[in-house]
């Protein structure tokens, strides 16, 4: 789960990481009122789950409160990478002497958290990472001991020459790792970590991504989810325990298992069609889940044909068949339906479907080809 910058800031501040003061505004008037509290210029920053905010015009410098209001009224309501901006963060514009990068990720190859630091921070850090990876210091952490003091000091020396700044950087690295670990993050990032002309070290921007599997342990973090940042169909899917991602094609897909769902989408493409979505109904299917899945798929006006691909294991084919029949009793289908199912309770499923006037295929390639043809016709 992604957190907004202002939410990430609040969490990192609780762990003692220094930020400039700041507050969130949902209207131009609120932005102006916040700017008036800070004598001097402010930054007005779009709060949206997308990188490249600055390049999209979502981060602006305002010299006075009136300008802050003007920027806020333009930024609130704009969309960045299809995501609507509903809030801005207003912070005093800091004077910057240097920009660095500090981050923690779970590294899948190393199978442990890795803290990364680079003196070449700022908006081009991804270029730095791909072109000059040697400029990024990487420190693997044994999570049983945490980030050890000498490791944090090494990170500080990787960032700064001045000993006071080295110590400040090391302390921030310790606190960032502590926050990362405490909230169950998969990414915690400060970019840029700046020094000011008078020598202080502080964080100007923050990013936190929390492992979805940790949310059961952190209800206070789960409550921070911004529902406006995702499509209603994605919320509906999550409420029903379905894994769903909308795409732009015309063949609606309903599959059990993530790997088979991806392979089904790939096969749609192989036969010349375009998948409308990724949808995994999960292992232990029940008919209600299938009804919800059909509701979500038929809610997409671009869908011209619906394809079920079920390989019964834990998932029982008869449960899926019952769900399909129940769904079509609750709402009429306006596009053709192609059903492929094989495996556990296949014969029972075919009987249920046949009685309701549907037919079922057993071969995956046959079913996909048929769905692609119907979506085109």
């Amino acid at each position, binding site marked *: 789960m992604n957190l907004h910058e202002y939410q990430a800031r609040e969490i990192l501040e609780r762990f003692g990481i220094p930020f400039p003061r700041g507050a969130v505004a949902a209207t131009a008037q609120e932005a102006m009122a916040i700017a008036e509290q800070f004598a001097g210029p402010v930054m007005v920053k779009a709060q949206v789950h997308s990188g490249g905010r600055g390049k999209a015009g979502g981060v602006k410098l305002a010299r006075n409160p009136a300008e802050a209001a003007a920027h806020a009224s333009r930024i609130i309501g704009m969309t960045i990478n299809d995501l609507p901006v509903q809030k801005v963060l207003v912070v005093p514009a800091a004077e910057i002497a240097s920009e660095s990068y500090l981050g923690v990720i*779970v590294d*899948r*190859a190393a*199978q*442990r*958290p890795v803290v990364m630091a680079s003196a070449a921070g700022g908006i081009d850090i991804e270029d730095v990472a*791909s072109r000059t990876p040697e400029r990024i210091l990487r420190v693997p952490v*044994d*999570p*049983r001991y945490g980030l050890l003091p000498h490791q944090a000091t090494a990170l500080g020396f990787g960032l700064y020459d001045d000993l006071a700044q080295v110590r400040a950087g090391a302390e921030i690295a310790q606190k960032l790792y502590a926050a990362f*670990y405490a909230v*169950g993050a*998969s990414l915690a990032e400060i970019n840029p970590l700046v020094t000011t002309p008078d020598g202080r070290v502080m964080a100007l921007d923050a990013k936190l991504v929390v*492992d*979805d*599997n*940790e949310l*059961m*342990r952190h209800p206070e973090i789960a409550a921070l989810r911004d529902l406006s940042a995702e499509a209603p169909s994605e919320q509906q899917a999550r409420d029903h325990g379905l*894994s769903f*991602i909308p*795409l732009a094609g015309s063949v609606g897909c309903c*599959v*059990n*298992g*993530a*790997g*088979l*769902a*991806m*392979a089904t*989408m*790939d*096969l*749609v*493409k*192989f036969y010349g069609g375009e*998948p409308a979505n*990724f949808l*995994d109904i999960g*292992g*232990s299917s029940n008919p209600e889940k299938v009804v919800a899945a059909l509701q979500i798929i038929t809610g997409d006006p671009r869908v011209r044909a619906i394809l079920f691909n079920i*390989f*019964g*294991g*834990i*998932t029982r084919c008869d449960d899926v068949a019952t769900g399909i029949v129940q769904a079509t009793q609750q709402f009429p289908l306006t596009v053709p339906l192609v059903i492929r199912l*094989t*495996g*556990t309770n296949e014969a029972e499923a075919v009987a249920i479907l046949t009685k309701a006037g549907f037919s079922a295929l057993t071969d*995956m*390639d046959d079913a996909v080809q048929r769905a692609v043809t119907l979506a085109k016709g």
Partner: protein
Amino acid sequence: MSVFIDRTTRLLVQGVTGRDGSFHTRQMLAYGTTVVAGVTPGKGGSRFDGTVPVYDTVAEAVRETQPNATVVYVPAAAAASAIFEAADAGIALIVCITEGIPVLDMTKVIPFLAERGVRLIGPNCPGLISPGQSKVGIIPGNICRPGRIGVVSRSGTLTYEIVHQLSTHGFGQSTCVGIGGDPIIGTSFVHCLAAFQADAGTDAVVMIGEIGGTDEQQAAEYVQRSMTKPVVAFVAGQTAPPGRRMGHAGAIASGSGGTAAEKMAALERAGIPVMRRPADVVPLLKDRL
């Protein structure tokens, strides 16, 4: 012959009385797996379905019944703890079916197991089956046939699809291993390929990968460097959009190496034929054998 499990496997089931654990324990018993004991804290002293003894702790079960493998069906919040317990009790093979374990939990599990020489398969995996000998996990036994093809996969139902193709065309399997769809897993493609290479009962290997990470690339290097047996591969997720998690926690195409196209190219560069669709598995294998 087979890898990891065979007729001599004596299995413990952790979470034996739960909804998933009880259902699949019955399936494993029906398949012929030797299930020696179960563990559910608080249910010690009882018998599962009147036959399998249930213990409160793994240590007790090990002392009384000498299992050499365990399968974990414990819910996500307590699954890492169940793995620690099994490793601490000296069980050398742990298969974890549970989905949704926090990845930071796994970062603590992995070094603990490495220090004790314990093999973990999974988590978030369907387990494994050596057809006709033993089944540990949830792979449907009826789609498998005894034979000489090794199967290793990051997926569940996609594996069943491909195994079904193999079985219906006369290619039985030595062992099918589901290694799991999480970012951090105990056993990689390379571990399994090495085991199949060393297994006298395996002639060729089918490897089923997907987007996310670079395990397929490491497997490609390994095959080129160290394998003499033929390997054919599939990679799911060619149409997956970058940056989105496709169901499995590990299936995100991002950054360097994570996309299906990059994986397929790396495999082909290593001389491994890559299926364009699951149904290609049989012709590709016939071509290589």
